[in-house]
């Protein structure tokens, strides 16, 4: 489904990603973790070309990412993304947030798009908020709307970049529950998160990054119980330590 091979990226002189290799199969759930500044966001954003790479190959759903705008558009239609800061459109209602892209990108009729959107609002457990503006919702509700918005495009892959880090503790669970449900339904997911409980529950693989490299990639129980590298041990002791 997603394949990055020997991908490199620089910001000026700064080498952010170093020979990154990763493969995500259909239906697989991969959790990416690592210290701040290690390049996790950069890596995940390469997959839908919010960032560009300088060398290496990225293939998503059989399409290789290049400067060709058609291939970028094609991939963005198939890949949904959820951001740390929600990025809902504040001037549109929840319903309009959800139906805009299906109507204008997928060319769905308005009525069908709205029914579809209502269905996803029910799945993220906020069916009654359709007519509100994002600014009138709590953080956890906003993030669930953001998830529904991405799902409304019927993506084959969902990318999550620290979806719960901007949330108050009591709201984290409601978002994670939605994500766990999504995982059980067989969605292909790549998720940057430090929620180790979530990783243990749903991940097929945990990828640990540090300083732009993938240091370890292993099944969750292996990674958490027997990390092979010192860097991973140090990282785990830090996040589990408090």
């Amino acid at each position, binding site marked *: 489904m997603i394949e990055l091979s020997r991908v490199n990226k620089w910001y000026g002189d700064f080498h952010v990603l170093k020979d990154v290799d990763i493969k995500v199969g259909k239906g697989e759930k991969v959790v990416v973790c690592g210290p701040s500044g290690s390049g996790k966001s950069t890596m995940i954003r390469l997959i*839908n070309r*919010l960032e560009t790479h300088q060398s290496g190959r990225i293939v998503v759903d059989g399409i290789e990412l290049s400067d060709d705008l058609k291939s970028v*558009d094609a991939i*963005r*239609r198939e*890949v*949904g*993304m959820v*951001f740390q*800061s*929600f*990025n*809902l*459109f*504040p*001037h549109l209602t929840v319903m309009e947030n959800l139906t*805009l*892209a299906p109507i*204008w*990108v997928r060319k769905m009729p308005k009525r069908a798009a709205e029914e579809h959107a209502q269905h996803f609002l029910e799945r993220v457990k906020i069916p009654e908020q359709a007519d509100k*503006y*994002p*600014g*009138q*919702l*709590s*953080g956890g*509700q*906003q993030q669930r709307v*953001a998830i529904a*918005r*991405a799902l409304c*495009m019927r993506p084959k892959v969902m990318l999550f970049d620290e979806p719960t880090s*901007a*949330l*108050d503790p009591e709201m984290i669970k409601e978002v994670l529950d939605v994500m766990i449900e999504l995982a059980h339904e067989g969605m292909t997911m790549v998720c940057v998160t430090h929620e180790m409980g979530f990783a243990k529950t749903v991940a097929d693989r945990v990828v640990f990054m540090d300083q732009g490299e993938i240091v370890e990639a292993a099944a969750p129980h292996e990674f958490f119980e027997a990390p092979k590298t010192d860097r991973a041990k140090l990282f785990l002791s830090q996040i589990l330590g408090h």
Partner: protein
Amino acid sequence: MGSDPFIAGPGQARTKGSDPKVALAWAREHLFSSWGNTAVTLMIVYLLWKLMLPFLDWALVKAVWWSPDGKACRVEDSGACWALIADKHRFMLFGTYPFDAQWRPALASLIFVALYVVSAIRACWRPWLALVWLGGLAAIGVLMWGGVFGMVYVENERWGGLALTLLLATFGIAIAFPLSILLALARRSTMPVIRWLAIGYIELIRGVPLISLLFMASVMLPLFLPEGVTIDKLLRAQIAMILFAAAYLAEVVRGGLQAIPRGQYEAAQALGLSYWKMMGFIILPQALRISIPPLVNTFIGFFKDTSLVLIIGLFDLLTTVKVSLTEPKWTGFGVEAYIFASAVYFIFCFAMSRYSQALEASLGAAQSRGTNGAGKGVA
């Protein structure tokens, strides 16, 4: 609260605004809250009183309202000479337009005002509004030029006064505004050539005064045109004003664009929206909304700048006012004439300003609690 004797007795409804008790309480709290505050309030009231009294005396009590030959205004100790306005208001408002046909520019001005009013109502922001405008402008064109339906033809050299001012301002803003959005987008484009062109254009136009642009449009432009091709003087002035306004508005729009967080672009892109859809649905609606105050500020400035067309011999409202004063019987009554002109400008500019405040408030009401981020909500 009901038991507090100073607020409201039982069964005594509390009304807002007009209630003298409320007004008194407000005054006590805001104007007389301390000795210092009270002193300042009293001093200002005193100064206003001292200034207003002679003005009212001049403008109302001793004013001359009617005097076709202007003699009454020359009498010793007479006040404002409103007789000038009574005598010359037709010329001030309609310029040298044929006197008997002046109902036509009057009606045209009313149509302009009606168009503004309809466009100001949000419920009317529908596709048919464009048709209303097309129809309105066509009617204005027919009225101003005439030549059909038994109306005599009036060449646009003779248009003047308020109708001309409204014409220049309306077309100026209506065309310059969309143009400025394109310019602002171009200035932020990732394509260097487009960006440089936009920067060059904006900086060039902003670097020269409108007067010199108008002058160039009226004097130099004809030199570059091929033999036999002439562009009407009014059109040349209009083009110069559009080019000028577009550059200024573009910078205002760019300011609004800069305030939109990157996450909005990224979310739109991640959903697969194309550049124009992203701009049209996501970025511009937000950017323009936060730009309403500076945009209206620029509109108001532009409305008043239309008076500069006088240097190329067009008779806008301010010019007709000035010309009225050259008549021997009215020379020396500039204050009255300019008060009149100012009042007309003020009505339009004040309406724009109030409208922008109302629009901002109504657009902001629904989504009052800001944008994204770690908003901690009240569910």
